[in-house]
């Protein structure tokens, strides 16, 4: 652009050419979605490996055969890089505003793929363009590799490797939900399309499901509308006292597992037992005293509340989980049988599967007789992590050096 009166498409190419190419790629992608009425499907092992190797060879060949050509100078230059970043950013921006994966999607926006951008041809082309430009510039600075280019290489190649491995490996990612129970070992799971997957090579039986909970919160609510009136939080723990909405509340007794018999709660550990607290509430203005048992109840027993005044009742909310975990017995087709514990944020790896604690029966809460696990297989993760590791090193270096050259 800065060259005086350069005719478009005359080398060296600049921003006009770069952006025309980027926009053409995007429109082409939309058009393919619109005409073919299809989305991009991922390729799987081992096809993706061959495809990946082929792309790497192609990039290297093109670079070394044509590195002196003006086309390649453009492809590894800043205008191409900026147009590639802009195209990618634009599509991600659309993703940031248009709710993705909308089930009722229809109409033109749907037909050009904007409700599922990740699987659209436009996004595929944007990603290819981004990876080709990033790949070329990495090659340009790497041969010959000079000391001052090492940081550049770590950042650019790290990003390239991460995106490349994540894209071509996407087809090998398997995520399966497995609902375990205590009576038998379950050997199949359900994938995100709702299909049963049988060849897991693994069977899991639930031995014990555990939830550790936070102390339950007390709320003053309007007994007609059910709306919560207090803003300040109050935790029901033995001996705790505090003030909410002019009521001084003291917890006189608290059972984590309580069952009501007659008009009194008793500490009994049995299926369906729920937290129960004996509270004494004193109104600061009227000095009126109210006391009694409150409980959040469970799937088996009814809850209990304390009437404070007309229209106002004191209730116990269901306690919220602090951590939950499953003790399970795992059988593998390779002949291993062992017990282990799977917790949120602490997955377990078995025969290439990473097993995550995912969910449980919320109606039954801590008495849940099932535990929902998620099994994830992602054979490309080491390559992606290597790229991420390079990016972390590059970022630390960048933080240390700043932009001082």
């Amino acid at each position, binding site marked *: 652009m800065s060259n005086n009166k350069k005719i478009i498409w005359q080398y060296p190419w600049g921003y006009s050419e770069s952006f025309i190419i980027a926009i053409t790629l995007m429109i082409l992608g939309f058009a393919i979605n619109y005409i073919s009425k299809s989305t991009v499907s991922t390729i799987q092992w081992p096809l993706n490996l061959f495809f990946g190797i082929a792309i790497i060879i192609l990039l290297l060949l093109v670079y070394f055969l044509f590195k002196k050509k003006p086309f390649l100078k453009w492809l590894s230059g800043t205008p191409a890089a900026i147009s590639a970043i802009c195209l990618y950013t634009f599509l991600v921006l659309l993703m*940031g*505003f248009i709710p993705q994966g909308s089930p009722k999607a229809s109409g033109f926006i749907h037909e050009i793929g904007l409700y599922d951008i990740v699987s659209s041809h436009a996004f595929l082309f944007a990603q290819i363009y981004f990876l080709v430009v990033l790949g070329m510039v990495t090659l340009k600075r790497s041969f010959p590799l000079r000391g001052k280019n090492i940081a550049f290489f770590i950042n650019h190649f790290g990003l390239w490797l991460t995106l490349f491995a994540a894209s071509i490996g996407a087809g090998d990612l398997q995520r399966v939900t497995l609902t375990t129970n205590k009576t038998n070992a379950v050997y199949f799971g359900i994938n995100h399309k709702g299909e049963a997957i049988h060849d897991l090579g693994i069977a899991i039986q639930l031995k014990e499901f555990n939830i550790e909970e936070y102390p339950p919160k007390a709320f003053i609510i309007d007994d007609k509308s059910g709306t919560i009136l207090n803003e*300040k*939080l109050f935790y029901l723990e033995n001996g705790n006292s505090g003030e909410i909405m002019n009521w001084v509340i003291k917890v006189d007794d608290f059972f984590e597992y309580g069952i009501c018999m007659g008009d009194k709660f008793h500490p009994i550990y049995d299926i369906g037992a729920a937290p129960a607290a004996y509270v004494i509430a004193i109104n600061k203005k009227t000095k009126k005293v109210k006391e009694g048992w409150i409980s959040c109840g469970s799937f088996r027993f009814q809850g209990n509340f304390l009437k404070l005044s007309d229209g106002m009742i004191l209730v116990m909310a269901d306690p919220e*989980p602090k951590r939950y975990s499953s003790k399970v017995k795992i059988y593998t087709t390779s002949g291993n049988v062992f017990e282990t514990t799977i917790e*949120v*944020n602490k997955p377990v790896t078995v025969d290439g599967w990473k097993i995550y604690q995912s969910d449980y029966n919320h109606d039954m809460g801590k008495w849940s007789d099932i535990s929902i696990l998620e099994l*994830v297989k992602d054979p490309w993760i080491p390559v992606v992590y290597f790229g*991420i590791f390079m990016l972390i090193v590059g970022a630390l270096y960048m933080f240390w050096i700043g*932009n001082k050259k």
Partner: protein
Amino acid sequence: MDILNFNNIAFITIALWIIGSLFILGDQKIKNGRLIGNLFTITGTLVIIVFVIILWIEIDRPPMRTIGETRLWYAVFLPIVGILTFFKWKYKWFLFYSLGLAILFLIINILKPENFDKVLMPALQSPWFVPHVIVYMLSYALLGVSSVVSAWGLYLIKFKTFKPKLLNKADNLVYMGFSLLTLGLLFGALWAKEAWGHYWTWDPKETWALLTWLSYLLYIHFRFRHKHKTVTALWILALAFIVLLICWIGINYLAVSGNSVHTYTS
């Protein structure tokens, strides 16, 4: 609990910062004005740091869950960035800006009291939680300062007194902020793999964090090639910060945020 009253702490901090700023502002006329001013601003910052530490212990989890709690961290990091850069570059406006913004965040937190709920959902209980949020808050603080450089630059251009050297200051802040942004994004990805089974799921917050990252990436590449096109650079920098703000705060108001794991309940 009385010592921990947030309002009192916030007022003490704000007072110390304002007194410190006044001393620094008048350091030509007051003997040892700059030293005294520095002591006041540092003390104010220490007070709020100690408050965050006590709060952390008191609620038994990192205070990083709600948007109000992240504002609190912003009020911790901005003065730190401001004081350090003030020591390095001696720009008073820089310090006043970061203190002013930190005061604004404290005032918002005074007007919108937090409950400091103890509950932290199991997925957030991870060793990644603290580094993930801290690098982001520090990064936002740095990039926030760079955005003021851009606004100041655009203002100066209007009056034809802009000097390109100003953008070099912004560059340094952007490089530091961007590298922390990268770390935040990657720590988030590594954590997501451990907690949710995959490192990237295009969760709305992830999408906007990537957009923020791409915007600053664009700025860096544009600056790298076009050192003299300062006006365009200033605009990219200003727009990038708007993307950052949408990612940080605006996301809660977007239609897409429905099922994000990052939707803050406060």
